[in-house]
């Protein structure tokens, strides 16, 4: 199956069609949209090497041949701390260089958006939690809490995944829906 999938990814010629992901992963912050990212990334591994949080891993073929050796982030394993170093070190601009300010990050980073599962979230079950709110690097902007610290995600969320990493529920009640568009 893996081979057939890889072959179909290969066959799915010019750009666009190659980006039908089968896994839920994030690209590093500031990455271009998937087809352009794949065309620009030369698989040098510098983004992972400079990541102080070591949240960037590399595909080995489980996501098709086209994204072999490209960087990805699984937010439940380790979220992105938005240090923006990977964009500075990327030689090809596959990850765009973005300044480390809240405005620049909100304007330039589109890794995905957090989604709260109210059936799992403790705060929606009558207990107060608020861990995701405390983990959020953009509190009250990307994520605000209402009554009983019930989290609400706004469209300013960049999808860094720190809330998903921090969620104390198992499985996690808040998760990033990646933006592959």
């Amino acid at each position, binding site marked *: 199956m893996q081979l057939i999938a890889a072959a179909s*990814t*290969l066959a*799915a*010629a*010019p*750009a666009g069609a*190659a980006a039908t992901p089968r896994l839920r992963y994030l690209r590093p912050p500031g990455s271009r949209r998937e*087809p*352009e990212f*794949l*065309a*620009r*990334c*030369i*698989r*040098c*591994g*510098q983004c*992972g*090497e*400079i990541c*102080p*949080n*070591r949240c960037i*891993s*590399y595909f*080995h*073929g489980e996501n098709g*041949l*086209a*994204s*072999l*050796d490209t960087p990805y982030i699984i937010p439940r394993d380790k979220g992105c701390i938005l240090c923006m*170093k990977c964009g500075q*070190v990327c*030689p*090809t*601009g596959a990850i765009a260089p973005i300044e480390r300010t809240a405005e620049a990050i909100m304007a330039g980073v589109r890794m995905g958006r957090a989604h709260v599962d109210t059936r799992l979230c403790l705060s929606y079950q009558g207990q107060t939690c608020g861990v995701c709110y405390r983990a959020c690097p953009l509190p009250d902007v990307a994520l605000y809490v209402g009554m009983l610290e019930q989290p609400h995600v706004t469209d300013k969320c960049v999808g860094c995944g720190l809330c998903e990493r921090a969620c104390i529920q198992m499985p996690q009640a808040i998760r990033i829906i990646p933006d592959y568009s």
Partner: protein
Amino acid sequence: MSSSNRKPFFLWRHLNKLRWLVLSTVFAMLVILPYVHVYQNYVSAHAYDLLAPSEQRFYDLMQTLTEPLTDDPAEDLDAIKGNTWSGTFWGFKLSDPLAAAGQMAASLKVFGPFLLTALIPILATLLLGRFYCGWICPATFLYELNSNLAVWLQKLGVRTGHRHLDRRLKYVVLALGLVLSAATGAVLVAAIYPPAIIGREIYYAVALGGFGAGAVFFVGTLLFDLLVARRGFCRYLCPGGALYSLLGRYRLFRIQRIVENCNDCAKCNAVCEFGLDPLRDGFGQECNNCSACIAVCPTDAMTFRVRFTDQPDQGPGHLGRQYRKQHAGEGRS
């Protein structure tokens, strides 16, 4: 026609040692940088107390090693990153010309800033030919050790491969790699280019806990070199080598034979990793200026010259038996 005024520069005999020093330094850097990355993570996490004892020993070692070089660990340890495929030195970026070619093929457009990072390597290749293959490539480091292993295996009676394939095969591989990159919209040449693979795989092994698929490919190339053709991948298949051969065709610095000093011993042909024919002035675009033939020559008949083209075949060496037979009687008084 006195040979005294055609002596090569005496230090060029030792260039091969310098080359091994450069090769091993580059390879050592590829191993050290991932460890720096792991150490950096410990530093930024401020979690020394939470480390396992073995990790604490590693931390202490790295701290001792890097302390004299770094004022501010968070900044200074970021200074050198990457590998020979693409690297960053204090914000100055250098990339492999093949990376630029592959990226242009995959995206079907030119991305200026990235092409600029490949400019210095391209200019150096125009001047020095395939010097990358002989002097820097981390795969060469392992492939030459592999060649030495083949010699030892032969001494033990194991049959190793000495087939000769068509050198033009690698241009086909290069063209195919670029066409497939363009067709899929992904830089696929990165997956079949050994130095890029080695840079990545060492990082995976050190920092991410294990080798990836590229390691299998690389072991395959080692076995190919051992069992099918000596240095076969570099000679016949490497897409990067093909690109540098094309760029370095009219290189300025080339190795040449001084026919007056040559005694036809053919040690240069035996030592040439790329299977060229220095004895008959057959270097061509394939020569990687590794200077192994200069180092091995017993009569100092090999030297570097500044020329755009090779000498045509200069005939048998003047110290050799064949030349002396042909010219018997001449110059005798």
